[in-house]
C-alpha cells in the first residue's frame, strides 16, 4: 500500500540553526496522526515543508507519491493546509475568499457553488458568508481557514494547531469535524492540547529538538513507559500496617496513601506488582476492594520523553 506521507532523512536549517534533524516517518492513507512537541521542536517547520511552503535543506518527503520539491505542484494538489497563524485576505468577504481558493484549487463551473456550500456548512460559516474577513472573530477566521483546507476534498489534510484560539464549544465542533473526516482523508495535526490527541489520533509522533522521540499509538506509548509500574489498590484493613507491608514487598519503590484505604504503589524497575500485592492482601486476611495497573497519561508520557531527551 502506498503511503500518504513518506518522510525520509528530512533536515532543515535556518541559517546556522538546525530546526529539523533527519526525520523519518510515514503515514498511511486514512490515518489521523498527532504531531506533538514543545515549542520550537520543529513541528511547524516539518508541516510547512510537507505543505510545500518551505524546501528541505536535505532529505525529502513524498505526499501521495509525489516529491514535495520536484513534483511540488502535484503534491500540493493532494493536500489542504491550515497554517499555524491563519492569515486571510481582510479585504475579501468569506464567499469571495472561498471562491478564490476553490478556483485556484481547480473547482470549476457548477461544482463551485455546491462545494462552497458544503465547506461552509461543515465549518458553520453560513451566517457570515457576506461579511468581510477583517470583521470576523478569531473563531470564525479559524473555521474559514479550515474550510479552505477542505475545498476539493484533498486526500491529505495538514492542520497546524486547528483548535487554537477557539472557545470550548467551537473546539468540540472542530474536533467532531476532524473525527468525521477520518477514513476519507488522511490527517496530520499538530497541537499542544494533549487530550485532543488522545481523543482524535490513532497515532502520535512526538518530536523534540528536531528529532522524533516516539511514534506509536497513545496506549502503546503509555504501556511502554512502564507496564505495571504503577498499581492502584483499595484495601479494607489497618492503613499503617497495609502501607508498611506494601513497602516491604520486593521491587516496590514507593507507596503513597491516597486516603480511604487507597494506595498507589510504584515499582522501581517496571515489574508487574499485582500478583505479589494480591497474595499479600489475601495472606494478611484483609479485604481487597480494587486492584489495577494505572496507565500513564499522555501528558506524563510526553513530559517523560521530552525531559529524558533534555537530560
Amino acid at each position, binding site marked *: 500500500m502506498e503511503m500518504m506521507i513518506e518522510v525520509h532523512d528530512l533536515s532543515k536549517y535556518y541559517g546556522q540553526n538546525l530546526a529539523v534533524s533527519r526525520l523519518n516517518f510515514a503515514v498511511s492513507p486514512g490515518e489521523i496522526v498527532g504531531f506533538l512537541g514543545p515549542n520550537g521542536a520543529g513541528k511547524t517547520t516539518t508541516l*510547512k515543508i510537507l505543505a510545500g*511552503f518551505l524546501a528541505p535543506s536535505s532529505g525529502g518527503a513524498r505526499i501521495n507519491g509525489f516529491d514535495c520539491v520536484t513534483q511540488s505542484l502535484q503534491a500540493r494538489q493532494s493536500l489542504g493546509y491550515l497554517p499555524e497563524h491563519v492569515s486571510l485576505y481582510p*479585504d475579501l468577504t468569506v464567499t469571495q475568499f472561498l471562491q478564490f481558493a476553490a478556483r485556484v484549487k481547480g473547482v470549476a463551473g457548477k461544482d463551485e457553488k455546491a462545494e462552497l456550500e458544503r465547506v461552509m456548512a461543515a465549518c458553520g460559516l453560513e451566517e457570515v458568508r457576506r461579511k468581510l474577513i477583517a470583521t470576523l472573530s478569531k473563531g470564525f477566521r479559524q473555521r474559514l481557514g479550515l474550510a479552505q483546507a477542505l475545498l476539493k476534498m484533498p486526500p491529505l489534510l495538514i492542520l497546524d494547531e486547528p483548535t487554537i484560539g477557539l472557545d470550548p464549544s467551537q473546539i468540540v465542533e472542530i474536533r467532531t469535524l476532524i473525527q468525521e473526516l477520518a477514513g476519507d482523508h488522511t490527517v496530520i495535526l499538530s497541537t499542544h492540547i494533549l487530550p485532543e490527541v488522545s481523543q482524535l489520533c490513532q497515532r502520535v509522533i512526538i518530536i523534540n529538538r528536531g528529532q522524533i522521540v516516539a511514534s506509536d499509538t497513545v496506549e502503546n506509548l503509555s504501556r511502554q513507559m512502564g507496564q505495571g509500574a504503577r498499581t492502584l489498590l483499595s484495601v479494607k484493613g489497618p492503613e499503617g500496617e497495609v502501607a508498611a507491608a506494601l513497602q516491604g514487598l520486593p521491587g516496590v519503590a514507593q507507596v503513597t496513601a491516597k486516603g480511604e484505604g487507597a494506595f498507589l504503589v510504584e515499582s522501581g524497575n517496571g515489574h508487574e506488582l499485582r500478583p505479589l500485592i494480591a497474595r499479600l492482601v489475601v495472606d494478611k486476611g484483609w479485604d481487597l476492594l480494587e486492584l489495577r495497573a494505572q496507565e500513564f497519561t499522555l501528558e506524563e508520557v510526553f513530559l517523560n520523553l521530552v525531559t529524558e531527551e533534555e537530560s
Partner: protein
Amino acid sequence: MKSVTSGCLALIRKELTVYFTTPIFYITGFCFLVLAGYFFYTNVLYYSIISLQAAQQAAMNPQVAGQLNPQYMVFRPLFGVVAVVLLFLVPLLTMRLLAEEKRSGTAELLFTYPLTDWGVILGKFLAALLIYLILLAFTVSFALAFAAVGRLDWGAVGTGYLGLTLLGGAALSLGMFASSLTENQIVAGAVAFGLLLFFWVMGWVQEVGSGLGGLFQALSIMEHYDGFVRGVIDTRDLIFYLSFIYFFLFLTKRQLESRRWRA
C-alpha cells in the same frame, strides 16, 4: 495546465477585487486623472492661442498655418508628461503585490495552493496591468473630445498608447520585483521609485559625455518611448520593453524561489 490557467485567472480576479475594495486604486486614479487632465487642458489652451496668432499672421505668411499640428503641440507633450506622472504612480500600484502577502502571512496559503510561481507572478502582474490600462482608458476621452472639434491623427495617438502600455508594463514588472524583495510596502514603493528613476535618467549620461553613454542610453526606459510618441513602431523598442518586462518578472520568480530555500 488548464487548472493552472484557471488558478491564474482566479488570482487576477482576486487582485482586482482587492484593488477595487481598497482606497489605493481610487487615490492613484484621482491623482493621475487630475494631473493628466490639467496637462491636456493647458496644452490645448496653448495650442488654441498659437493657432489664433497664426490665423492672424496667416494673411501675411500662409506657411505658418500649415505647420500647426495638434499631434505636435497637444498629444506629443501630453504623452511625455503622462509617462512621467505614471512613473510616480506605478510604485503605488505595485508596492502591495507581494510585500503585503509576506507581511500579513497570506503568502503561506497562496504558495501552498496548487499554483506555479509563474502563475502567481503572471496573475499579479496582469491584474496590475489591467488596473493601469483602466486608468489609461480614461484619458482616451481627451483624444475623443479633441477629435470632436478638430483633426486628429489617430494612428499616432494609437502608437502613443501602445508606448504607454509597454512603458507601464516595464514599470509594473520592476515594481513587482521591488515588492518581492521586502515585507514592507513603503520600502517596496521606495525601491521601485528609485529604480524607475534610475532607468529613466540613465539615458542622460550620454549628454555628459561618458564612454558608456551609448549602453546606458540603450537601457533607459524613456529612450525607447520617444519613437512610439512620434508615431513610429520600431521592433527594437518593442523587443526592449518585452525583454525588460520578462527580465524583471524572471527576477521576481527567482526571488520567490529563494524564499522557499532561505526562509
